[in-house]
Protein backbone atom coordinates (compact mmCIF):
# COMPACT_ATOMS: atom_id res chain seq x y z
CA UNK A 1 0.00 0.00 0.00
CA UNK A 2 1.43 3.38 -0.92
CA UNK A 3 1.19 6.35 1.37
CA UNK A 4 1.10 10.04 0.54
CA UNK A 5 3.52 12.15 2.52
CA UNK A 6 1.95 15.02 4.44
CA UNK A 7 2.90 18.37 2.92
CA UNK A 8 5.56 20.34 4.72
CA UNK A 9 3.98 23.28 6.52
CA UNK A 10 5.68 26.64 7.02
CA UNK A 11 4.56 28.98 9.80
CA UNK A 12 4.76 32.75 10.20
CA UNK A 13 3.74 34.30 13.51
CA UNK A 14 1.14 37.06 13.31
CA UNK A 15 0.73 37.90 17.01
CA UNK A 16 0.91 36.36 20.46
CA UNK A 17 -0.85 38.31 23.18
CA UNK A 18 -0.90 37.26 26.83
CA UNK A 19 -2.86 39.30 29.36
CA UNK A 20 -3.18 37.17 32.46
CA UNK A 21 -5.51 34.29 31.68
CA UNK A 22 -6.55 35.92 28.40
CA UNK A 23 -4.34 34.62 25.63
CA UNK A 24 -4.60 35.17 21.88
CA UNK A 25 -2.30 33.72 19.28
CA UNK A 26 -2.32 33.75 15.49
CA UNK A 27 0.09 32.36 12.97
CA UNK A 28 -0.10 32.10 9.23
CA UNK A 29 0.79 28.86 7.51
CA UNK A 30 1.49 27.73 3.98
CA UNK A 31 1.96 24.43 2.25
CA UNK A 32 2.17 23.25 -1.32
CA UNK A 33 -0.09 20.61 -2.86
CA UNK A 34 -0.37 19.45 -6.48
CA UNK A 35 -3.16 22.01 -7.02
CA UNK A 36 -0.97 24.92 -5.90
CA UNK A 37 0.01 26.96 -2.87
CA UNK A 38 -2.30 26.93 0.16
CA UNK A 39 -2.17 29.57 2.89
CA UNK A 40 -4.24 30.30 5.94
CA UNK A 41 -4.22 31.22 9.57
CA UNK A 42 -4.59 29.44 12.89
CA UNK A 43 -6.04 31.55 15.67
CA UNK A 44 -6.15 30.43 19.30
CA UNK A 45 -8.05 32.24 22.06
CA UNK A 46 -8.07 31.28 25.74
CA UNK A 47 -10.04 33.30 28.29
CA UNK A 48 -12.00 32.97 31.49
CA UNK A 49 -15.52 34.06 32.34
CA UNK A 50 -16.72 34.67 35.89
CA UNK A 51 -19.50 32.11 36.03
CA UNK A 52 -20.24 28.41 35.80
CA UNK A 53 -20.59 26.59 32.45
CA UNK A 54 -24.34 26.50 33.15
CA UNK A 55 -24.33 30.29 33.35
CA UNK A 56 -21.97 30.79 30.41
CA UNK A 57 -23.34 28.22 27.97
CA UNK A 58 -26.61 30.00 26.96
CA UNK A 59 -24.50 32.87 25.66
CA UNK A 60 -21.44 30.93 24.47
CA UNK A 61 -23.54 28.66 22.24
CA UNK A 62 -25.24 31.66 20.61
CA UNK A 63 -22.50 33.53 18.76
CA UNK A 64 -25.00 36.24 17.77
CA UNK A 65 -25.32 37.23 21.42
CA UNK A 66 -21.70 38.31 21.75
CA UNK A 67 -20.57 38.92 18.16
CA UNK A 68 -23.34 41.03 16.58
CA UNK A 69 -21.98 44.17 18.21
CA UNK A 70 -18.65 43.52 16.46
CA UNK A 71 -20.27 43.02 13.07
CA UNK A 72 -20.61 39.23 12.75
CA UNK A 73 -24.06 37.74 12.17
CA UNK A 74 -25.04 34.04 12.23
CA UNK A 75 -28.08 32.40 10.68
CA UNK A 76 -28.77 30.21 13.73
CA UNK A 77 -27.84 29.37 17.31
CA UNK A 78 -24.72 27.29 16.71
CA UNK A 79 -25.00 25.25 19.88
CA UNK A 80 -28.41 23.99 18.75
CA UNK A 81 -27.36 23.01 15.22
CA UNK A 82 -25.46 19.73 15.61
CA UNK A 83 -25.54 17.98 12.24
CA UNK A 84 -26.75 21.12 10.50
CA UNK A 85 -25.18 24.13 8.83
CA UNK A 86 -25.15 27.89 9.26
CA UNK A 87 -24.04 31.08 7.58
CA UNK A 88 -21.71 33.73 8.97
CA UNK A 89 -21.90 37.15 7.38
CA UNK A 90 -20.89 40.72 8.14
CA UNK A 91 -24.28 42.01 6.96
CA UNK A 92 -27.34 41.41 9.13
CA UNK A 93 -29.51 41.44 5.99
CA UNK A 94 -27.43 38.77 4.20
CA UNK A 95 -28.31 35.64 6.15
CA UNK A 96 -29.98 33.80 3.26
CA UNK A 97 -26.79 33.15 1.30
CA UNK A 98 -24.76 29.92 1.18
CA UNK A 99 -23.92 28.30 4.48
CA UNK A 100 -20.13 28.10 4.99
CA UNK A 101 -20.10 26.08 8.23
CA UNK A 102 -21.25 22.63 9.39
CA UNK A 103 -21.76 21.84 13.07
CA UNK A 104 -20.00 18.51 13.57
CA UNK A 105 -20.59 18.13 17.30
CA UNK A 106 -22.14 19.86 20.28
CA UNK A 107 -21.71 18.65 23.85
CA UNK A 108 -23.80 20.98 26.00
CA UNK A 109 -21.77 23.18 28.35
CA UNK A 110 -18.57 21.53 27.07
CA UNK A 111 -17.63 21.31 23.37
CA UNK A 112 -18.49 22.64 19.91
CA UNK A 113 -16.76 21.38 16.74
CA UNK A 114 -17.26 23.13 13.40
CA UNK A 115 -15.93 22.33 9.96
CA UNK A 116 -16.18 24.08 6.65
CA UNK A 117 -16.63 21.99 3.49
CA UNK A 118 -15.03 23.15 0.25
CA UNK A 119 -17.39 25.77 -1.13
CA UNK A 120 -18.17 27.06 -4.58
CA UNK A 121 -16.72 30.47 -3.72
CA UNK A 122 -13.72 31.68 -1.76
CA UNK A 123 -15.84 33.02 1.14
CA UNK A 124 -14.10 31.60 4.20
CA UNK A 125 -16.84 33.05 6.44
CA UNK A 126 -17.97 36.54 7.34
CA UNK A 127 -17.73 37.61 3.69
CA UNK A 128 -13.96 37.37 3.87
CA UNK A 129 -13.16 36.34 0.30
CA UNK A 130 -9.56 35.18 0.24
CA UNK A 131 -7.63 33.27 -2.41
CA UNK A 132 -9.35 30.84 -4.74
CA UNK A 133 -11.04 28.47 -2.28
CA UNK A 134 -10.45 24.90 -3.43
CA UNK A 135 -9.61 23.50 0.04
CA UNK A 136 -11.63 23.29 3.23
CA UNK A 137 -11.96 26.92 4.38
CA UNK A 138 -11.76 25.98 8.04
CA UNK A 139 -12.02 23.78 11.11
CA UNK A 140 -12.73 25.00 14.62
CA UNK A 141 -13.02 23.55 18.12
CA UNK A 142 -14.42 25.21 21.23
CA UNK A 143 -14.02 23.83 24.74
CA UNK A 144 -15.22 25.10 28.09
CA UNK A 145 -15.18 23.86 31.66
CA UNK A 146 -15.35 25.16 35.21
CA UNK A 147 -12.46 25.53 37.61
CA UNK A 148 -13.10 27.24 40.97
CA UNK A 149 -16.33 28.91 39.91
CA UNK A 150 -14.95 30.34 36.69
CA UNK A 151 -15.30 28.95 33.20
CA UNK A 152 -12.20 28.49 31.06
CA UNK A 153 -13.02 28.84 27.37
CA UNK A 154 -10.69 27.77 24.55
CA UNK A 155 -11.10 28.39 20.83
CA UNK A 156 -8.80 26.79 18.22
CA UNK A 157 -9.66 28.06 14.74
CA UNK A 158 -8.12 27.37 11.35
CA UNK A 159 -8.94 29.01 8.01
CA UNK A 160 -7.34 28.21 4.65
CA UNK A 161 -7.58 28.82 0.91
CA UNK A 162 -5.69 27.97 -2.26
CA UNK A 163 -3.80 31.18 -3.00
CA UNK A 164 -2.39 30.36 -6.45
CA UNK A 165 -2.21 27.45 -8.84
CA UNK A 166 -0.02 26.35 -11.73
CA UNK A 167 2.85 28.63 -12.70
CA UNK A 168 1.47 31.42 -10.51
CA UNK A 169 1.89 29.17 -7.49
CA UNK A 170 5.45 28.37 -8.47
CA UNK A 171 6.20 32.08 -8.72
CA UNK A 172 4.49 33.02 -5.44
CA UNK A 173 6.58 33.01 -2.27
CA UNK A 174 5.17 31.65 0.95
CA UNK A 175 5.34 35.10 2.54
CA UNK A 176 3.38 36.58 -0.37
CA UNK A 177 0.71 33.90 0.07
CA UNK A 178 0.05 34.97 3.66
CA UNK A 179 -0.46 38.67 2.88
CA UNK A 180 -4.17 38.38 1.91
CA UNK A 181 -4.81 36.82 5.33
CA UNK A 182 -3.60 39.83 7.30
CA UNK A 183 -6.92 41.71 7.08
CA UNK A 184 -9.02 38.89 8.56
CA UNK A 185 -6.38 38.03 11.16
CA UNK A 186 -5.87 41.53 12.51
CA UNK A 187 -9.59 42.26 12.42
CA UNK A 188 -10.20 39.09 14.42
CA UNK A 189 -7.57 40.11 16.99
CA UNK A 190 -9.36 43.41 17.61
CA UNK A 191 -12.80 41.83 17.60
CA UNK A 192 -11.86 39.18 20.19
CA UNK A 193 -9.94 41.56 22.45
CA UNK A 194 -12.22 44.60 22.30
CA UNK A 195 -15.57 43.06 21.42
CA UNK A 196 -16.23 39.34 21.70
CA UNK A 197 -14.63 38.55 25.07
CA UNK A 198 -15.79 41.70 26.90
CA UNK A 199 -19.30 41.28 25.50
CA UNK A 200 -19.56 37.63 26.54
CA UNK A 201 -18.30 38.47 30.03
CA UNK A 202 -20.78 41.35 30.29
CA UNK A 203 -23.70 39.13 29.24
CA UNK A 204 -22.83 36.50 31.84
CA UNK A 205 -22.30 39.13 34.53
CA UNK A 206 -25.66 40.76 33.74
CA UNK A 207 -27.42 37.39 33.82
CA UNK A 208 -25.85 36.53 37.18
CA UNK A 209 -26.94 39.87 38.65
CA UNK A 210 -30.47 39.37 37.42
CA UNK A 211 -30.73 35.73 38.47
Amino acid at each position, binding site marked *: MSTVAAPEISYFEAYSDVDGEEKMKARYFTYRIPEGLVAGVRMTVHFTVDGTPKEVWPFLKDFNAWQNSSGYYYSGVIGELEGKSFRLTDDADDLDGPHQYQVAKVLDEYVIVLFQPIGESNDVGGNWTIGQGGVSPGFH*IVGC*DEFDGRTYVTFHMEHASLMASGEAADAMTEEEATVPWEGLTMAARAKWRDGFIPTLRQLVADARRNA
Partner: protein
Amino acid sequence: MTVHFTLDGTRKEAWPFVKDFNAWQNSEGYYYDSVIGDQEGGSFRLSTDPNDFEGSPSYDVIKVIPEYVIVVSQPIPEGAYGGKDWSIGQGGVSAGFHIVGLDQFGDKTIVTFHMEHASLVGNEGEDVTESWRPMTEEAARKWREGLIPNMKRLVAEARRNA
Protein backbone atom coordinates in the same frame (compact mmCIF):
# COMPACT_ATOMS: atom_id res chain seq x y z
CA MET B 1 -12.97 14.97 31.94
CA THR B 2 -11.05 18.13 31.18
CA VAL B 3 -7.28 18.46 31.46
CA HIS B 4 -5.25 21.63 30.88
CA PHE B 5 -1.49 21.61 31.30
CA THR B 6 1.62 23.43 30.12
CA LEU B 7 4.77 21.96 28.55
CA ASP B 8 8.16 23.65 28.61
CA GLY B 9 8.74 23.52 24.88
CA THR B 10 7.46 24.76 21.56
CA ARG B 11 4.48 23.15 19.85
CA LYS B 12 6.95 21.75 17.30
CA GLU B 13 8.82 20.04 20.14
CA ALA B 14 5.62 18.90 21.88
CA TRP B 15 3.70 17.60 18.86
CA PRO B 16 5.65 14.37 18.17
CA PHE B 17 4.72 13.23 21.68
CA VAL B 18 1.22 14.74 21.94
CA LYS B 19 0.16 12.95 18.76
CA ASP B 20 1.57 9.57 19.88
CA PHE B 21 -0.42 8.49 22.92
CA ASN B 22 1.70 5.36 23.30
CA ALA B 23 4.72 7.50 24.07
CA TRP B 24 3.27 8.87 27.29
CA GLN B 25 0.48 6.42 28.20
CA ASN B 26 2.07 2.95 27.95
CA SER B 27 3.65 3.29 31.38
CA GLU B 28 0.14 3.80 32.81
CA GLY B 29 -1.21 0.71 31.09
CA TYR B 30 -2.88 2.22 28.03
CA TYR B 31 -1.83 0.85 24.65
CA TYR B 32 -2.83 2.13 21.22
CA ASP B 33 -2.51 0.23 17.95
CA SER B 34 -1.14 3.27 16.07
CA VAL B 35 -0.01 6.88 16.26
CA ILE B 36 -3.28 8.79 16.62
CA GLY B 37 -1.99 12.01 15.08
CA ASP B 38 -1.16 10.10 11.88
CA GLN B 39 -4.61 8.52 11.58
CA GLU B 40 -6.94 11.25 10.28
CA GLY B 41 -9.86 9.49 8.61
CA GLY B 42 -8.81 6.19 10.14
CA SER B 43 -9.54 4.45 13.40
CA PHE B 44 -7.61 2.97 16.28
CA ARG B 45 -7.97 0.62 19.21
CA LEU B 46 -7.18 1.39 22.84
CA SER B 47 -6.39 -1.55 25.09
CA THR B 48 -4.98 -2.14 28.54
CA ASP B 49 -3.24 -5.22 27.14
CA PRO B 50 -0.37 -4.71 24.65
CA ASN B 51 -1.25 -8.09 23.13
CA ASP B 52 -4.90 -7.22 22.57
CA PHE B 53 -4.98 -5.20 19.37
CA GLU B 54 -7.03 -7.67 17.35
CA GLY B 55 -10.48 -6.48 18.40
CA SER B 56 -12.63 -3.92 16.66
CA PRO B 57 -11.27 -0.40 16.58
CA SER B 58 -13.29 1.70 18.99
CA TYR B 59 -12.12 5.22 18.12
CA ASP B 60 -12.44 7.20 14.86
CA VAL B 61 -10.02 10.04 14.17
CA ILE B 62 -12.19 12.81 12.77
CA LYS B 63 -9.56 15.51 12.32
CA VAL B 64 -5.87 16.13 12.80
CA ILE B 65 -4.30 19.54 12.31
CA PRO B 66 -0.58 18.98 12.98
CA GLU B 67 0.77 20.85 16.01
CA TYR B 68 -2.74 22.18 16.71
CA VAL B 69 -5.84 19.95 16.97
CA ILE B 70 -6.98 16.32 17.26
CA VAL B 71 -10.67 15.33 17.26
CA VAL B 72 -11.69 11.74 18.07
CA SER B 73 -15.17 10.20 18.08
CA GLN B 74 -16.35 6.83 19.35
CA PRO B 75 -19.21 5.13 17.51
CA ILE B 76 -21.98 3.28 19.28
CA PRO B 77 -20.40 0.02 20.48
CA GLU B 78 -21.86 -3.36 19.68
CA GLY B 79 -21.71 -4.39 23.33
CA ALA B 80 -20.96 -2.65 26.57
CA TYR B 81 -18.87 0.47 26.60
CA GLY B 82 -15.12 0.30 26.19
CA GLY B 83 -14.17 -3.27 25.34
CA LYS B 84 -13.00 -5.89 27.77
CA ASP B 85 -11.22 -3.57 30.20
CA TRP B 86 -13.83 -0.89 30.84
CA SER B 87 -17.21 -2.50 30.41
CA ILE B 88 -19.61 0.12 31.68
CA GLY B 89 -23.34 0.04 31.21
CA GLN B 90 -25.08 -1.31 28.16
CA GLY B 91 -23.53 0.80 25.40
CA GLY B 92 -26.32 1.94 23.09
CA VAL B 93 -24.99 5.49 22.65
CA SER B 94 -21.76 6.95 21.28
CA ALA B 95 -19.07 5.81 23.70
CA GLY B 96 -17.23 9.10 23.58
CA PHE B 97 -16.06 12.28 21.92
CA HIS B 98 -12.75 13.99 22.56
CA ILE B 99 -10.96 17.14 21.44
CA VAL B 100 -7.32 18.05 21.94
CA GLY B 101 -5.99 21.54 21.34
CA LEU B 102 -2.52 22.94 21.73
CA ASP B 103 -0.70 26.16 20.99
CA GLN B 104 2.47 27.93 21.96
CA PHE B 105 2.68 31.08 24.05
CA GLY B 106 6.24 32.25 24.56
CA ASP B 107 8.36 29.11 24.76
CA LYS B 108 5.63 27.07 26.45
CA THR B 109 2.88 24.98 24.89
CA ILE B 110 -0.57 24.92 26.49
CA VAL B 111 -2.38 21.62 25.92
CA THR B 112 -6.10 21.12 26.51
CA PHE B 113 -8.03 17.85 26.51
CA HIS B 114 -11.86 17.77 26.65
CA MET B 115 -13.05 14.15 26.89
CA GLU B 116 -16.56 12.72 27.18
CA HIS B 117 -17.49 9.06 27.68
CA ALA B 118 -21.04 7.73 27.86
CA SER B 119 -23.09 4.54 28.08
CA LEU B 120 -26.66 3.56 28.75
CA VAL B 121 -26.69 2.71 32.45
CA GLY B 122 -29.09 1.97 35.26
CA ASN B 123 -32.73 2.44 35.83
CA GLU B 124 -34.69 5.46 36.96
CA GLY B 125 -33.88 6.34 40.55
CA GLU B 126 -30.47 4.63 40.62
CA ASP B 127 -27.24 6.52 41.23
CA VAL B 128 -25.98 5.99 37.70
CA THR B 129 -22.79 7.96 38.29
CA GLU B 130 -21.47 5.09 40.44
CA SER B 131 -20.82 3.10 37.28
CA TRP B 132 -18.35 5.70 36.09
CA ARG B 133 -16.61 6.49 39.36
CA PRO B 134 -13.75 3.90 39.20
CA MET B 135 -12.68 4.80 35.67
CA THR B 136 -12.95 8.53 36.40
CA GLU B 137 -10.95 8.38 39.62
CA GLU B 138 -8.30 6.19 38.02
CA ALA B 139 -8.05 8.57 35.08
CA ALA B 140 -7.53 11.49 37.45
CA ARG B 141 -4.64 9.68 39.10
CA LYS B 142 -3.14 8.57 35.78
CA TRP B 143 -3.21 12.10 34.36
CA ARG B 144 -1.80 13.69 37.51
CA GLU B 145 0.89 11.14 38.37
CA GLY B 146 1.68 9.53 35.04
CA LEU B 147 0.46 11.01 31.79
CA ILE B 148 1.30 14.67 32.31
CA PRO B 149 4.69 14.07 34.00
CA ASN B 150 5.58 11.57 31.26
CA MET B 151 4.85 14.02 28.50
CA LYS B 152 6.74 16.83 30.25
CA ARG B 153 9.74 14.53 30.71
CA LEU B 154 9.68 13.37 27.07
CA VAL B 155 9.63 16.93 25.77
CA ALA B 156 12.38 17.95 28.22
CA GLU B 157 14.57 15.02 27.16
CA ALA B 158 14.00 15.77 23.49
CA ARG B 159 15.04 19.39 24.06
CA ARG B 160 18.18 18.35 25.89
CA ASN B 161 19.13 15.93 23.13
CA ALA B 162 18.31 18.31 20.27
